[in-house]
């Protein structure tokens, strides 16, 4: 496959940190001590009309706001297509409908929660709001959903580089997922300070959430943040060595050597039982490369790679690495040209993403 030119020309992101103002960059940092991180949100009225606002669930408001900020940042009114991604969808709404159904013994149900619990509800809502009749798709592939969606966009840009595609993610800290997840030791049982999850690692991660939107185009614009050069997915690698070899051949394919990478952004989750491949990998690859972690800020969720992609884009655009994300004592370079984002979800879904500075 040829490499697609893929520029990030706009971003909007709501997360458990104050990230909805694009001119700010992690100046304030919030610590959570409940293992459940929830989004810091702006006044929704600024972004969503009052009529629409009343009808929307919390997560639809968050997603719609992120999409609106992104389009404004990109200076785009109507994108040519919308591709969203989520691991668990609108699980709160799904649970509300399910509970009503069980409590009322399948009688007297209203469809609102059912409709708003549909995985493609956000992609449909955004399309409807901006009257986008173009390509529309939604991926729900656990820890690969965002990567699949990004991949889809990159292939579409390869076929037509004039397109502007709106790529989005959303996942919520749903109570029911937290409880069900505890059964598989997916989440930590003991209350932990989110900012300390890498200090004394314990079993399980902390639950995060967020919604991030990116305007992607084959053409740069005055608002370009950076470019996405390549993406690769690895499903269930058997060892750190296998993953390392995969990363090395990916870099080779992109004519890049290990030392060309200025910063590695790692989706280490703080879960002592599932981070082992990443811990091993740090001893094999990029030993000297300055390293950044981010899941102490956003928590773990299926589409957390999108938070990582925002972080990478911000570092490349602003040429600045906030102290709170630095994970190695290595000196960070003055000029950051190339960033590699590597992520894993529950030690099953691994992905790597190569991003470059645009100037």
């Amino acid at each position, binding site marked *: 496959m040829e490499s697609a030119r893929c520029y990030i020309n706009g971003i909007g992101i709501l997360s458990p940190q104050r990230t909805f103002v694009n001119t700010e960059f992690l100046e304030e940092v919030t610590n959570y001590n409940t293992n459940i991180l929830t989004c810091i949100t702006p006044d929704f009225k600024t972004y969503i009309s009052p009529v629409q606002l009343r009808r929307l669930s919390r997560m639809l408001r968050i997603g719609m706001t992120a999409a609106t900020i992104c389009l404004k940042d990109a200076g785009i009114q109507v994108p040519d297509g919308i591709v969203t991604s989520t691991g668990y969808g609108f699980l709160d709404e*799904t649970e509300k409908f399910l509970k009503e159904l069980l409590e009322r013994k399948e009688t007297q*149900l209203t469809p609102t929660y059912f409709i708003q619990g*549909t995985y493609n509800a956000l992609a*449909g809502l955004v399309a409807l709001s901006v009257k986008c009749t173009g390509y529309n798709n939604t991926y729900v*592939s*656990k820890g690969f959903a965002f990567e699949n969606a990004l991949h889809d966009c990159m292939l579409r840009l390869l076929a037509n580089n004039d397109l502007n595609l709106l790529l989005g993610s959303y996942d919520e800290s749903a109570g029911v997922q937290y409880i069900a997840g505890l059964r598989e030791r997916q989440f930590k049982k003991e209350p932990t300070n989110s900012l300390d999850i890498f200090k004394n690692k314990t079993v399980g991660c902390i639950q995060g959430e967020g919604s991030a939107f990116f305007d992607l185009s084959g053409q740069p614009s005055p608002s370009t943040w950076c470019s996405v050069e390549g993406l690769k997915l690895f499903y269930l690698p058997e060892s750190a060595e296998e993953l390392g070899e995969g990363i090395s051949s990916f870099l080779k394919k992109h004519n890049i050597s290990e030392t060309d990478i200025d910063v590695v952004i790692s989706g280490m989750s703080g879960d002592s039982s599932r981070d082992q491949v990443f811990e091993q990998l740090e001893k094999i690859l990029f030993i000297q490369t300055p390293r950044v972690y981010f899941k102490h800020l956003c928590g773990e969720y299926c589409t957390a790679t999108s938070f990582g992609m925002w972080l990478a884009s911000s570092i490349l655009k602003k040429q600045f690495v906030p102290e709170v994300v630095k994970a190695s004592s290595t000196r960070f370079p003055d000029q950051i040209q190339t960033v590699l984002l590597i992520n894993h979800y529950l030690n099953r879904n691994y992905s790597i993403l190569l991003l470059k500075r645009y100037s």
Partner: protein
Amino acid sequence: MTQRVFITGFGVITSIGNNTAANFQSLVHQRCGFGELSILDTIHQSDIPSCEIKLHDEELKKMADVGAGIGYTRTALLGLIALREAIHSSGLTKKELQLSGLLSATTTGGIREFERHYYDLIDLSKEGSFAQYADTANPGEHCERLADEVGIKGYIGTISTACSSSANAIIEGAQLIRNGLLNVAICGGSEALSKFTINGFNSLMIVDSEHCRPFDNTRKGLNLGEGAAYIVLESEESVMRKSKTPIAELKGFGNANDAYHQTASSPEGTGALDAMKLALSSANVSPSDIDYINAHGTATENNDLSEGIGIQKLFGEKAPSFSSTKPYTGHTLAAAGSIEAVYCLLGLQHQMIWPNLNFQHQMPEVSIAPVRELKQQVRMKHLLSNSFGFGGNTSSLLLASV
């Protein structure tokens, strides 16, 4: 240089048959799966008849060859049965499978199991065999399970765009092959009936308690159904290397959005028209070349009006033969796109056009009418298969004989 995409195998399970041969026989003899529910535990067993597969999960586990099948949801079981048939019919080897992609679609994943064990699952003081279903509210769970079971590692993705989901899974698989990222992509969807789905659609008041009547003026709504189907897509290079004779070519596809209403299609049929137009243009085929359309035809007032108008706008008075096969299988939601693509392929192989059952009264808004009787010995070159869904999603696949 993009690769052409061929279809080299498929597998299907629905309320009218557990495999391809049984589905074919039912289509030929116009046997439908519509009737009272008896497997799903719901208060609506008799007042919302649906198209249910009359096999209990234990029987499905045997068919799917998964032993005790710990953690298997009905969605995963149906999916695995269709997937195994698809793999077998294409003759894929273990090594090929490892490098293959799996693109699967669902609207609710394992919500059937989740709703059954909900109170136990959220009470952490309880322990028991229900715990195997802890992650079944996740829609991507079934896809990873299927990939792990048959040994697919090349690429995996789950798609959920309501009732157009598996058509979009097929489109994404085709895109990955066209760009040389995969040689083989197995694409489709699986959907099990659940209380969640039945009550959800019932609350929207678009379910007909009688047998559905697509494109008929007296239509009152859809019948729900369950099933799964997967199609094996292979690159031109792969087909040639193995000297395989493909079943058909996936020549084009279109995906658009109606952007009209969260759960309704536009009365102008904009999205339907756009999707079909895109499918034609991507295949470089003109409307007059189309021999048959397998319509989405859910039998809701809204869909059939919108789709009928869309078809008429695109083809004028000379609309090709078209029919909805929803009266046979019910609306199988995420699986509908791939099940109906399989029915198109069966039609192509046997030179048959499946009649649109239960059509009697012409809709006054359009002058076109669906095929009412089984047509045989019809030589077809190009077929369209439509799938539309909530959220304004519209997709159309263009299949061509080889």
